[in-house]
């Protein structure tokens, strides 16, 4: 076996986050190899809606990362534009009752202070923004910065733009270490990849990759279903969701939770989310979940009752116990970096994450303080 290096950095995971890490690392002058046990966008990326959102985030480190990411997405949209179906459509968060509207407005005030553009929308102006919304809603907040991409296309085109070498269908089985104990690359089922740096961008599988490197990172799957309708003319202009969604995102419950999230796509079908439940990697159809999604969506947009769902699919959000991703170097194993655990926000947060990882890899001071995202912040479970 040769001791020569394969590359400067091995990125484990060819999903959205891995693709963004590859792009920014390449642009920082690093030679990059991306390895994935499946195909491009084969995990959560291929099952997502492609949300680039600030609206659902409370002020704090995740919102800062989202704002950084949105700026990067805006730049990429200029380069890749239509190929990734980038659409700066804006988000509309609606409140069903006056009580919820008050809470939503409080959140918006705090978000505004953190740099988010927000516009209060009164009940009588709702239909100017979304003509097909149900009557009787209390009001809304409009978030012009929210945007959307087609996630699988985005991952594939970022990977192509990165010019990184892509090795799919290749499973990381362990890590290589030098005599000093530091990381020297990864072992795969089809040979070793030698590099001084490795990035774990394996999404829901990130905990397993960490374990194979001998470190603890408790990434858990949180299942979500998406309903996809027949193609329609553009009838829903924004990403529209009920204010309850924010509470569901932040919840720690394992039980099924749903709150309606409805949006059109450039291709025509409407996508309906969002359900959350912790059931492991069970992909089988849950009728209760998709029924609840349909009930929520038709309550926001009554015309949808006549519209047919063509399919539904499940995805698994990679979720860490405090709902923040793990980003940055792992002090427990020099050379190992993490970029995973973004839960349901991974598409949106990918560009910022890739940007920060590239800064770390090239020895620069990252634009954001990585302390809240430290990968060693979870104590190992007592056994």
């Amino acid at each position, binding site marked *: 076996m040769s001791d020569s290096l394969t590359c400067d950095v091995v990125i484990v995971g060819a999903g959205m986050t891995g693709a963004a890490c590859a792009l920014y690392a390449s642009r920082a002058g690093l030679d990059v190899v991306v390895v994935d046990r499946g195909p491009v966008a084969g995990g959560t990326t291929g099952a997502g809606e492609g949300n680039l959102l600030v609206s659902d985030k409370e002020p704090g480190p995740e919102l800062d990362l989202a704002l950084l990411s949105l700026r990067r997405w805006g730049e990429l949209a200029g380069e890749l534009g239509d190929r990734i179906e980038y659409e700066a459509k804006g988000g509309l968060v609606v409140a069903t009752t006056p009580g919820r509207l008050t809470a939503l407005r409080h959140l918006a005030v705090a978000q505004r202070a953190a740099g988010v553009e927000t516009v209060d929308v009164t009940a009588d102006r709702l239909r100017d923004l979304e003509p097909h919304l149900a009557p009787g809603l209390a009001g809304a907040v409009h978030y012009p910065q929210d945007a959307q991409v087609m996630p699988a296309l985005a991952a594939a085109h970022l990977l192509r733009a990165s010019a990184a070498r892509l090795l799919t269908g290749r499973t990381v089985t362990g890590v290589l270490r030098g005599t000093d104990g530091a990381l020297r690359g990864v072992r795969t089922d089809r040979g070793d990849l030698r590099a001084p740096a490795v990035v774990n961008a394996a999404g829901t599988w990130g905990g397993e990759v960490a374990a194979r490197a001998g470190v603890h990172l408790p990434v858990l799957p949180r299942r979500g279903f998406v309903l996809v309708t*027949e*193609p*329609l*003319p*553009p*009838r829903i202009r924004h990403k529209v969701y009920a204010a309850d969604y924010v509470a569901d995102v932040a919840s720690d419950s394992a039980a099924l939770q749903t709150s309606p999230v409805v949006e059109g796509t450039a291709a*025509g079908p409407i996508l309906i989310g969002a359900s959350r439940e912790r059931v492991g990697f069970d992909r089988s159809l849950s009728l209760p979940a998709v029924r609840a999604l349909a009930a929520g969506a038709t309550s926001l947009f009554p015309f949808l009752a006549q519209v*047919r769902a063509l399919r539904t699919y499940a995805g698994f959000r990679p979720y860490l116990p405090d709902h923040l991703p793990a980003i940055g170097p792992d002090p427990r194993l020099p050379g190992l970096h993490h970029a995973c655990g973004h839960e349901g926000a991974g598409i949106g947060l990918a560009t910022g994450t890739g940007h920060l990882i590239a800064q770390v890899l090239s020895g620069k001071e990252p634009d954001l303080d990585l302390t809240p995202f430290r990968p060693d912040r979870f104590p190992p479970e007592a056994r």
Partner: protein
Amino acid sequence: MNPQEPARARPGPAFTLTFDGREIAAVPGQTVAAALWAAGATSWRTTRRAGRPRGVFCGIGVCFDCLVTVNGSPNQRACLVPARPGDVVRTQEGTGHED
């Protein structure tokens, strides 16, 4: 030759429906697609991207190529929906839904 002849079909009295405003005849038991074929029409939809004409393809309700608007209701499979007297059948463009 009318294919009803070799089958010695003696259908009930013919009725009319309209296809894009034109009256066409149908007999009881025919689907909308069968009535349109019998009237010489083989396309009644245009695709939503290239605007290409389409009609029956699989004939058994699987391919959704024969989608048509019947009595204002878009995206009906012509090969499954029975023709009824007075039906208003219209060529469907794009998604079939109005913008």
